[in-house]
């Protein structure tokens, strides 16, 4: 079947995006594995907070 020619981001304005390597990403992405490995504190903005969740602790300490 013929593939529709998608326009990849490469054909768009690359300057608006920062293509990160996996290694570079690991230093900014708040992924658990990265944290566990490096212990690096990660600062996060509020917009990354998930809307739907609850604490699983009975007292709900936080």
């Amino acid at each position, binding site marked *: 079947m013929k593939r529709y020619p*998608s326009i990849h*981001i490469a054909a768009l304005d690359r300057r*608006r995006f920062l293509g990160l390597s996996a290694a570079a990403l690991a230093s900014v992405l*708040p*992924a658990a594995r990265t944290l566990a490995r490096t212990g690096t504190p990660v600062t996060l903005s509020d*917009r*990354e907070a998930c809307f*739907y969740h609850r*604490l699983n602790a009975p007292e709900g300490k936080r």
Partner: protein
Amino acid sequence: MTEVACELCPRGCVIPEGGAGDCRVRVNIDGRLRASTYGRPSAIHIDPMEKKPLYHFHPGSPVFSIATAGCNLHCLNCQNWQLSQRGGEEMEKVYRADPDQVVALAREQGCESIAYTYSDPIVFYEYVEDTGRLAHEGGLNNVFVTAGYINREPLRRLCRVLDASNTDLKAFDDRFYREVNAGSLEPVLDALVTFREEGVWLEVTNLVIPTLNDDLVMIRRMARWIRDELGEGTPLHFSRFHPQYRMRNLPPTSGETLDRARQEALDAGLQYVYVGNVLGHEGNNTYCPVDGTLLIGRIGFHITENNLTGDGRCPSCGHPVPGVWQ
């Protein structure tokens, strides 16, 4: 150590501090749940609306389409497993695109719509909502291409920014969902009904896999459910399976199987039943359910002719065809 329970999807992962949910992208950091791919898409393309597939929503228009890593299902036959079955930190490519940049770029590229697609946009829920709100402010439409494995309350909230969805109904069989997708059927049926109740334009896709979900009795039950719960005017797309990922042992779906599935659904009373992934099949076209007039001709994702009147009616008999035609 503070555990957090994610309440976004039916999986209900309880995530220990430092851990990620089953989707790999919703992570517990210091007792707070974070959407780790927010603003970090790994796929950005411009597609035709027909590729979603949406056949009754702004036909022929280009859609700015984005996805991040991660998925809350694990289909053995996933078409996008390099994207969906990985976390953000495992991706070779990650772009930075804040919601306002996505909207600006979509406009710059002449797209009237933004699609949240490829993996399952459920797992980048907050990014969809923020981008969707800005898109609406800028006069763009939001298209949500999903497997519908999400809890009702979050979906209802998200529907406020959505205009259209193509939702997979992978089989009308809970056991299939458990064995092939690592999910379950009931939440998906709930999601389909929710889209309909919230007024989001809805089309349904069923990928027909030889021997696993091609049973005509099941297809009939599925078609009747769609007719009764979603309406006879709901477009249903039967799509051809290609062997890939962890399901390479089965052959591609035959044309005859797809023909039989389509006929079964038409017989059950659905009015717009399509066959996808088969080039030049008459099931790519839209016909008037009353008098059989060819309304929209398609080859692949390309529109060859559009005979609908300006307000979306059959030019011969005036039958109104449901959809968003503009």
